[in-house]
């Protein structure tokens, strides 16, 4: 039998078999849908987290980052000496440098005096370093010593942050002159940007120290060579990483060392196993109940691919049948999460394709585990 008509016949018989007991089919599809929904939510949150943890760095153009050797991740930075940027320039590989400061500060909403915490970011003239158009546009507004830009994606707990609003950082009154969009969801309730010169005023920090030095290389210079040169030139209390290394390390630390990533991975494994187990369970019952029918097909001379194909088609239909409601409900939940948290959890084509691939893999695996039993269907036992 040709492949396409064979496949169509398998699917037709498989569908008829599944539809024979509708309540049980609905229950099975619900279970598979719930497992796939869990998987979808976890994959989406994990992906969103992977993107979000490097959100600030993604707003900057740089090839190399010079960090204090005690740097852990964005919320635990330390400082380097601003002289280190001069040293970097002296290596000959560097086109330009940029000082980036970050510090967790007290944020007081006015007039309520409600206190929260805020990540204060200090920047130099954007030059060629800042990618984000809102930050570039806002830079011009940051003329006065009390001017700041506020992250429009800050959590509601920080209070009103529209341009024109006043608030307090530490003991200093500040004035919001513009906004940018960042949403440092896992790190801070809110973020603000100030010029570096004002950053030190707000934090009482030492102007000779900076948190992170960003470096752009001259055209044609390889980041790895530049990194090696900078390590030789810079003091031993610095950590020099290429952009790729920094982003990789940031994600690895958050997702592999911190427990949230581990928990999400474990939940994903559980959800996958559950989905596969439900398909195995339903298929096992189906095969057991229909051994006589399988034996009859064999007695009639049906090819083995056809006989096996019915079972595999049932597995596939179950997987796909559970996938559709999982995606629909998942998209609704994740849209809600995205709107509330500004995490990018919208369900797009790539996530849908991932889920399709997972669901088919689970179906095939489950089907393969059960379908060998069909071998035992013996036409001789029909008499």
């Amino acid at each position, binding site marked *: 039998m040709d492949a396409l008509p064979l496949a169509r016949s398998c699917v037709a018989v498989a569908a008829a078999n599944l539809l024979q007991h509708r309540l049980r089919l609905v*229950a099975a599809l619900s279970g598979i849908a719930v497992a796939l929904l869990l998987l979808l939510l976890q994959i989406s949150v994990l992906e969103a987290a992977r993107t979000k943890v490097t959100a600030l760095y993604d707003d900057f153009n740089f090839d190399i980052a010079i960090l204090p050797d005690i740097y852990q991740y964005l919320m635990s930075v330390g400082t380097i000496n601003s002289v280190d940027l001069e040293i970097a320039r002296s290596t000959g590989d560097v086109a330009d440098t940029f000082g980036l400061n970050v510090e967790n500060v*007290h944020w007081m909403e006015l007039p309520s005096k409600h206190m929260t915490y805020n990540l204060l970011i200090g920047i130099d003239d954007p030059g060629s370093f800042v990618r984000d158009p809102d930050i570039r546009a806002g830079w011009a507004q940051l003329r006065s010593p009390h001017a700041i830009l506020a992250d429009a994606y800050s959590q509601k707990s920080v209070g009103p942050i529209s341009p024109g609003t006043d608030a307090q950082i530490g003991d200093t009154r500040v004035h919001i002159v513009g906004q940018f969009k960042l949403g440092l*969801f896992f790190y801070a309730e809110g973020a603000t940007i100030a010029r570096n010169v004002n950053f030190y005023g707000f934090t009482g920090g030492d102007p000779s120290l900076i948190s992170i030095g960003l470096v752009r290389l001259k055209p044609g210079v390889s980041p790895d060579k530049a990194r090696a040169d900078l390590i030789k030139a810079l003091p031993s*209390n610095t950590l020099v990483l290429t952009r790729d290394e920094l982003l990789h390390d940031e994600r690895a630390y958050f997702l592999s060392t911190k*427990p949230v990533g581990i928990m999400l991975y474990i939940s994903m494994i559980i959800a996958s196993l559950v989905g596969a*187990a*439900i398909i195995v369970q339903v298929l096992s019952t189906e095969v057991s109940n229909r051994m006589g029918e399988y034996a009859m097909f064999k007695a009639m001379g049906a090819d083995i691919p056809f006989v096996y194909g019915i079972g595999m088609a049932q597995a596939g239909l179950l997987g796909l049948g559970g996938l559709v409601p999982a995606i629909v409900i998942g998209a609704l*939940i994740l849209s809600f999460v995205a709107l509330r948290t500004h995490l990018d959890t919208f369900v797009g084509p790539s996530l849908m394709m991932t889920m399709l691939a997972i669901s088919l893999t689970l179906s095939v695996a489950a089907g393969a585990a059960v379908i060998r039993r069909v071998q035992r269907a013996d036409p001789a036992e029909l008499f």
Partner: protein
Amino acid sequence: MSAQVLLGLRLLWHDKLRLLSMSASVAVGVVIIFVELGFLWGILDAQALVATLARGQFLVMNKTRADLHHWDKIPAAELTLFNGVPGVAKVMPVYEDHYGLTDPDGGRTVDSHRIRRVILYAFSPIDLPLAVGDPAPMSAALKMADSFVFDRWSRPIYGHIVPGMDVELDKVPLQVSGLATMGPDIVNDGNVFMSDTEWLKRRPDAQPIMGVVRLAPGADVEEVRQRLLASAPSDVTVMTPQEARARENNSTLKAAPIGLLFALGMVAGLVIGTINCYQVLYTEVSDHLGQYATVKAMGFSDSFLNGVILTQALVLSGTGFATGLLFSIFADAFVAWLTRLPIQVHLESGSLVLLAVIASCVLAGWMAVRRVEAADPAALY
């Protein structure tokens, strides 16, 4: 025992392997619920660990310190004010800061960093305001000069650290004088401990992060609390460790959608358990459809057969719960080891989970009963 309950029990007990398999199906949902609950409680317990470990009846902190993960310190002088309050036996300062610990193995874990941030707690080795180990050895270890005690439950990113080794803390080599047991949280990866004397040698201007207040024997907690509040400066807050815990839990749940995420996971577990229970009961009924039809033909009512199914559903809720609970203990222990968080089965939640499992299995039984109603005695001829 009624005939239908007896029949239901016998049908399940007859094939023990099958009963195990059916229980395992229901147990899957139970494991999911306990693992998600374990995650949630593990995170909350870890975040509030310092409050839980305090060996005193009150904690005194800077009012601006909104949760236990911020650095607002309290002047030592303000802490000493409380020593004179009647009913107070001791006010024990706890210092906290973050340090860089250099990996003695040369840095080989997740990324390229050799120096790892670690939280340092410093306190009196005699008073021991935090319960992080057996008092006698802890006290002895803390008293050693130029040394620190390492939290054995820190995440493995610090390398292999054992007592007797020299390890750089803030680039100064110090001896590891002992091991404590505390554990990290979702923000901090590890802890070290030092005596307050040792700490103040290094940071003479250091201020405590909080004070742990221990009451005199027989002192009335409420009365002392009122006195403490009355004598507290305006920038100081006084709360019990339980209150600090509750505040921390609130703050943690607000900061991240973990409540929603894990609650969804628990609901998913319950749904999966219900569906699995229904599937196994459905299969059970299908396998015995002829027998059920015969029983109907003999003159038993539908409600008799429904009782047989519901008996099986209830038994499965119990065996599924027990199986799931056993697996959850191991699952949670495994996740605790991976994450270094205090993830475990909370038996207080156990009774609620059992009720939920019973309800879900009864629902499954009610759905499966429809299958029994389809058993047609006329089809037996």
